[in-house]
Every structure is written in C-alpha cells, then in structure tokens.
C-alpha cells in the first residue's frame, strides 16, 4: 500500500532526481531530546527525498517558537525564512506571488498559528494560498516555558497542575470552515500515518493544513495533559487507513475493497490518495460532515486523525490571480516597464 515503506526497504542511495538523502537533511536539532517536532523534521526529510522533490525549488518558512526553529533542521538546499511571530502566512503568500513555481513549506506551532497568528492563518486559507502548512501542535508555549496555548484542551493541566479554563481552538475545524483545500490531523509519534499524509499534502496544490499533535516532552507530557504521548496514543481515533501512491509509481486499481469503503482522490500532480474508511459515514469531501465530526470529537475528548477534508477542484490563489507563466521574480525590464507609448497615452488623458 504505502510506497514509503517499500521504497525505504530498498534503502536507495539516491532518489528519482538523483539526489541522496543529505541535501534533504539540515543542521543538528537544538530542540529537546524526544520532542515531537524532531520526529516531524525527520518525516519531512524522508518525504521530500522519497517524492524526489528538487530542494532548490522549495522554500521553507516559519514564524517564531520551538516549531519555527525547525526549518533549520531539514532541507539545507532550500531557501529558508524564519520570520516574525504568527505572520509567516503573509511572508509565504508574498513569496508565492513572486514565484508561483516554488513549493512552499510552512512550519508553525499552536501559539504561532492559533493565538498571535490566527488572523493570518485564517486569511491564508481563505485565499487557498499554495502551501503545505504544518502546525506542530503541543498545546503550550515551549520556548517561554510552558504557558497554555489556544489549542490546549479545556481542563488539560500544566506541569504546575493548573487546569486550562478556556476551550480550545480546533485548527482543523477552522481550516475546513475557512477554505483550506486539504485538511488533515496526524501524530508525530505515528510515523507511517504522518508520512502518507505529508506526501499527499505535497501532491496538493492549494492550502494544505496539517495539524500534527507533537508532544512537548519538557512542559506538556505529564499526566493530566491532553497533548502527552500517552494521552494521544490512547485517545486518537483514526478516520481512515491511508495509502498514497506517488505519480511516478505505477498506480494499481484496487479491486479487493467492498464498494463504498474506499475514497480514492487523484491529487494535482497525478498521485493517488487512497483512504480506506474506518468510519463508515465519514465523507472527507463534505465540509458539513467534517465539521460535525470534529465537533463531536472535541466533546468526547477524541483526537481525530486522518484526512478530514480534501478538495482538488478549487483554484489556488496564484491561479486565481492569473499570473504570467514566467514567475514575477524573473521578469525582465521589457516585461516590467510598459512602453513609452503607454505613458504618452496617460499624459494625454491627464492633459
């Protein structure tokens, strides 16, 4: 099913564009040992390598926080931008306007996304900016020593024992509601699941929001926390068994599934996302049903994982703007400066 495992079993020295693993790696992490974010960085390295993505055509961007430090730990051959707190979406949007051919990977945290950056997060999705936006979600502010973030669940306790009194913002619920065209939740401790979802997101063209629950081993991994490794393992409810076949591999039609038990989604680059239903009623192409189920999960303390919503027929922001085939950044003076006759015309009108 998943090609990730199969490809890795062969331990290739190079991928389909002839690169080894090294260009996909980054500097040594400075995050805590056992931090979920490090696992996510590893998945990013593997997935970009296995998908054979040219790292020079990738931009990796982040805001501020532990998660936002991580772009230094992967994709050393990609341009990176560690911007300001909560406002990476704007920087990414601008960069994609300048060069719509790039692949943007945004890495953010729950504080960066759901508190200070909520406004930008929402508008990025509303525009369907082409980006893979990963939220490394640990329910707390690690870099400032463990304060609750806006994704912390009601009643979840801090290390000091204080209980969180405010309801959480569900970033996936928001994403579904506000126009993201690929919305998924995964867990940093579930390697295969995260790999498949990350690859599918890389094959998508539009805003792909990946909320990855990623425990903070230092400040939020204790009894009473709803973002600890233990709690997530015990309370995650997978919606589907996820398979992903990249476009450069042979896609076999699966005929051994009972009708109606599998969703097959052809992604923008021709890859196939195959979602084997674990919940009969769940329809990842229905905004309404997704929101309904997300709400129920919150009420029942479940962490819903899988592809919550996917739509491949909506134009991305750069498509909507009808931009020139040549990236704006690469246009020369002959294309950027209108001829003298144009100025003469305007001067005549104003005379």
């Amino acid at each position, binding site marked *: 099913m998943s090609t990730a495992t199969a490809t890795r079993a062969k331990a290739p020295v190079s991928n389909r564009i002839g690169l080894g693993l090294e*260009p996909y790696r980054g500097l040594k992490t400075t995050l805590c040992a056992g931090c979920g974010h490090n696992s996510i960085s590893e998945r990013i390295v593997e997935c970009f390598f296995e998908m054979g993505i*040219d*790292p*020079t*055509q990738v*931009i990796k*961007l982040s805001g501020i926080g532990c998660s936002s430090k991580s*772009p*230094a730990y992967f994709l*050393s*051959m*990609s*341009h*990176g*931008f*560690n*911007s*300001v707190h909560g*406002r990476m*979406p*704007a*920087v*990414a*949007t*601008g*960069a*994609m*306007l*300048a*060069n719509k*051919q*790039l692949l943007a990977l945004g890495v953010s945290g729950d504080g960066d996304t759901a508190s200070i950056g909520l*406004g*930008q997060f*929402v*508008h990025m999705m509303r525009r369907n900016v082409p980006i893979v936006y990963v939220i490394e979600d640990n329910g707390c502010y690690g870099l400032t020593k463990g304060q609750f973030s806006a994704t912390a669940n009601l009643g979840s306790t801090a290390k000091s024992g204080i209980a969180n009194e405010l309801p959480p913002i569900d970033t996936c619920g928001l994403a579904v509601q506000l126009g993201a065209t690929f919305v998924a939740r995964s867990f940093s401790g579930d390697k295969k699941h995260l790999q498949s979802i990350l690859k599918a997101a890389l094959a998508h063209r539009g805003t792909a929001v990946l909320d990855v629950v990623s425990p903070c081993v230092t400040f939020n991994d204790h009894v009473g926390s709803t973002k600890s490794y233990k709690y997530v393992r015990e309370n995650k409810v997978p919606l589907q068994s996820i398979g992903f076949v990249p476009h450069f591999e042979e896609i076999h039609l699966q005929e051994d599934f009972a009708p109606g038990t599998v969703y097959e989604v052809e992604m923008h680059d021709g890859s196939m996302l195959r979602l084997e239903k674990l919940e009969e009623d769940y329809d990842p192409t229905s905004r309404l049903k997704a929101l309904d189920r997300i709400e129920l999960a919150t009420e029942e303390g479940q962490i819903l994982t899988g592809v919550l919503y996917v739509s491949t027929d909506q134009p991305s922001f750069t498509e909507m*703007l*009808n*931009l*020139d*085939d040549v*990236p*704006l*950044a*690469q*246009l020369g*003076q002959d*294309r*950027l*400066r*209108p001829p*003298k006759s*144009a*100025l*003469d015309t*305007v*001067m005549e009108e*104003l*005379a």
Partner: protein
Amino acid sequence: MQAVNASPSGEPVAIPELEVVNDLSIHVATVNGSGSQSSNLVLLRALFEMGVPVSGKNLFPSNIAGLPTWYTIRASKYGFTGRKKEVDFLVAMNPQTAHEDVQSLDPGRAVVYDEPLGLDALRDDLCFYPVPFDPITAAVCPQPKLRKLVRNMVYDGVLAALLDIEMEEIRKGINKQFSTKPKAAELNWNAAKAGFDWTNQNLVKRDPYRLTRMDGNKGKIIVEGNAAAALGAVFGGVSVITWYPITPSSSLAESAQGYLNRFRIDESTGKATFAVVQAEDELASIGMAIGAGWAGARAMTTTAGPGISLMSEFVGLAHFAEIPVVLIDVQRMGPSTGLPTRTSQGDFLSAATLSHGDTFHPMLIPGTPEECFEFSAKAFDVAERLQSPVFVMLDLDLGMNYWTADKFDYPDWDIDRGKVLSEEDIERLQGDWGRYRDVDDDGIAYRTIPGNRHPQAAYFARGTGHDEDANYSEREEDWIRNMDRIQKKMAGARKWLPEPVIEDGPKARVALVAAGTSHEAVREARSQLRQEYGFETAYCRVRGWPFSHATEEFIAKHDHVYVVDQNRDGQLRMLLRRQFPAIHDHLRSVCYYGGMPLDARTITDAIVEREGL
C-alpha cells in the same frame, strides 16, 4: 451684464478701482455626499483649460454623507497654487456652515449663496450674490429625484457668468466628467447653462475678480499625487503590490491596479505580470511585500500613519534580514485615528527609524506630482540596491488633491535589481559565497533569490542573530560586525537619493529648509517676504533622508535657518539636528499642524515676527 453698483438692499457698494485678474481663491462649502465633487472638478478643469495655473483641494470630513465639506480652488497667474488662507469667492451651499463661512471672510470678498439662507443680512462689507438654486434646478430637471445631483452644477454656471469663465470649457469639462454617461452630461450641462443664464439676467457684478484665458498650462497635466506615485510604481517595474484600505493612501493602490490592468497584462496570453493583493490588515500587507521582495519581486505596500505603526515589527525584520521593499506612506494627521482626512508630515521621525533596536530606513520625499512619479519609480532601485525597506513620503495634500504638473518624463534609466547572484555566479565562485559577507567593502552583500537552482545558492533569512554566512549566531563579534556593516551600507545610501534643490543668493542672510508639500507654501512665502518686506531668503528643499552634504553646507552658511514642518514637534528639524549636530543652533522651527494644506501666509507671518521685519 449691467455695470450698476447696487447691493440687493439697494445700498451702494464701492467697487475696487482695479480688477483682480487670474488671482483668486474660490471656496465652495457644501454637504458631503451631495455630488459637489463633479461640479468642483468641472470648474477646476475649465480654469486649467483656460491656461490659468490652478489647484483644487478637497477639505473633507471623515464621513460618507451629511457633514460639511469644502473645496478650495486656487487660481494664480503667478503660478502659486498652494492653499490661500484668504477666501476671495465663497460659494455657500451648506446651511450648517454658511454663517461661520461668511463671518470669516475679509471685507470686499464675494459670496454666492442659496437665496433662502438670507446671508446678505450678516455683513455689509461683502458682495453678496443670492441665487435661487431650487427653482433654477427644477426648471431644467423635471425629475425631483435627480435634482439633488445636478443642483451643484448650477453654481458652475453662476461662477462662469460672474468670473468670465468660458462656458465652452465648462461644457468640455462636463463631457469629460460624464464621458460614459451622455444623459447625465446633458442634464448637468443644462443645469450649468441655467445658472449662467439666470446670473446674466438677474445679477449685477460688483466684485473685482475676473478670470481670463492665458498661457500658463502649456504641456501641463492635472493630476493627484497618488495617481502620479501609482504611475511611478508601474513604470518603475513594480510586480507585487499589497495593501490595506486606509485614507489617504487607498486611491494610490486602486489607481495602480487600474494602470496595471491596462498596461501590464500580456496581450497574447491575457496573463498578468503583476499581483495586487488587498490584505487583511497592514501586518499582512507588509509581510506579503517582504515575502515577495525576498523571493525576487519588485514589491511595495502603501499605507498611512496607523498602518506604519502596525508594520513596525516587520520593517525591522526586513532591515535586519536585508530584504528590499518599498513603502509609500501618504501621511495624515495623527496620533491614533487623529484627523484621518487631514494632511500632515507627522511620520518623518517614525518612518526614519521604524521598529525596535537600531534601525534606519532611507526616505524619498516628493514635493510635486512629477517627483511622486519619479521617486516612486526610483525607490524600487534604491530598495534593491540597498536590500532594505525604503520609504516614499507623500502626504494627503499631495496624494489626494489635484495639482498642475509637467508631463512626466519616461524613465531614462534601466531597472536595477542590485547585487543578485545567479546560478552561473555561484558556479563561478565554486559555492564560496556568504549572504552577509561584505565583499565589495560597501556594506552591501550579495543575495540569491529563492528558485535559484544551484545546490549552493540557498541561505536562511532570519530576524535572529546571524553570521556572515547567514548561520544562526549569538556571538557578540558576529552581532557587532553585522550591525556595523549595515550602518556602513546605510552611510552609502545617500548617493542614490534625490539631491536637495537649493536656491541661494548673496543677499539672503535668512534661509528656509522644507520638504514635501511645504514647497508650494514656501515658494509663495518667499515671494511675499520679497514683495512686502524687501526681504530676501535662501531656500533648500530636501528630497531625501539621510540628508545630503549639500544640505549641511547650506545650513552652515546661513545664521537663521527656518525649518518648515507640518507637524507640532518639528520632526524634519529633529532629523536635521540628529544628522548635523554641529550646526543645530542655526535651526529654527516654523511648525503648522492644523491639518489644512500649508499656506504661505502662515510661514511669512512666522518669519516676519521672528526676524522683526
């Protein structure tokens, strides 16, 4: 028209012996949202077409409809088109303000007013012209619903009759104003004609003001500074504009969008060589512009004071990560929401060093529409050469009002992208480059653009401390070296900024320094000082910050240098003091901060008083 001297009450009014030709201010008081803008623009255009140097300033409230608004037209054969403090010809259409407007006039001035207001009872030293606007309008506009819209066009006809404005030019102005609506054009023309005919049949001219055709506008255009700056950006090669609506800068972005749609969509493919994005707020608009600048676009945003405040953190990042971006600030009166529809030069200080830490952002300061065009275009080159935010400082008066200007010159310089390394460059260097290395000893390092396919092209942009190769660093040597290099880079910025315009003479012991829209008022104030007091002055108009060495020499040469500021605290003067501490005791302030476009008399009076003339 009969040359009989009688007021409506029958009292004789003395006619001044001399006619005043092509030198007056017309002040139209109306209600916001009553359609007066069309009438005012038609009037302005008629005077412009008659060859009389003219400007039109909209003194409007922060309101869509209902509050008082004034439009002031300055016509001057001498070419002085700054605001004139004294109103010569009042058109009182607004009952809310009519009494106060009339009381504020100097003796001998003229008032056209809506007859039922009965203003002639207020004073006996003015020339009153009562006009029954409603019956005149009703006679030419059978549909009551439309009367409100054409009523104001009647005063164009009245003024044409009283001031000898050519009706043919009024007609052309109406046709231009309503070029897509022939029916509306006809209706408005009928209203203007009715006002003209009624005046000729019923009123007796008793004021000295008159307009006559001259040759003052040959080769000229009439334009708002925002449109000029928008055109500058378009011809300067802008490729990404991100903005958030705010008075008085919105029309700049909208105007740019309009020109880009016309001139920058590829005819063969129908695709755009630009992106204009209305962002969710100024935090996002500057963020997008910075992202675009980093990724190789010619990027800009446009805003006003409150937006500048919101952009502060991001601008610090762009300064420190060294990303080119152009910010056009159309200044309005603050702090806070302040007077959002009034003009000021209140952002000089905050823009120059916007953000925390040691920051420094070059400014280009246009004082005319021609400079709005040129400086906006050139700002992109300056930003890309310096790899830094660059400000273009307009104000509401320049941006939103109509100015007479020379036709803009097509750029005779090539677009400059600054120091950018291509794939081939990196190959030639065998990958041995560093994003923040001072290779050329000018403080300006080389950058690569995302998408560069060379495996060693990438670097990591960040607001945190970094070494010469863009690696994260908290070492004090790295920090200090980097900050010193940026300072060195900025010390060289001056050569790419516009030089000051200096007018000096051997007789002038007193001098003025000004920037931006203070220029029109200073020009006229110098003339007043010369004509009325025989007092010669020198003048240095600064057009960029950091200031030029020529500005320093100029100040040093004159004992008393009056720095004209359109803000309370003398912000331009403070920037001069900061850069030239040795000569700061030469500087004196003339500060106006009432929100109106600066007028000459305010400057003249201040200098007369301080110099004891």
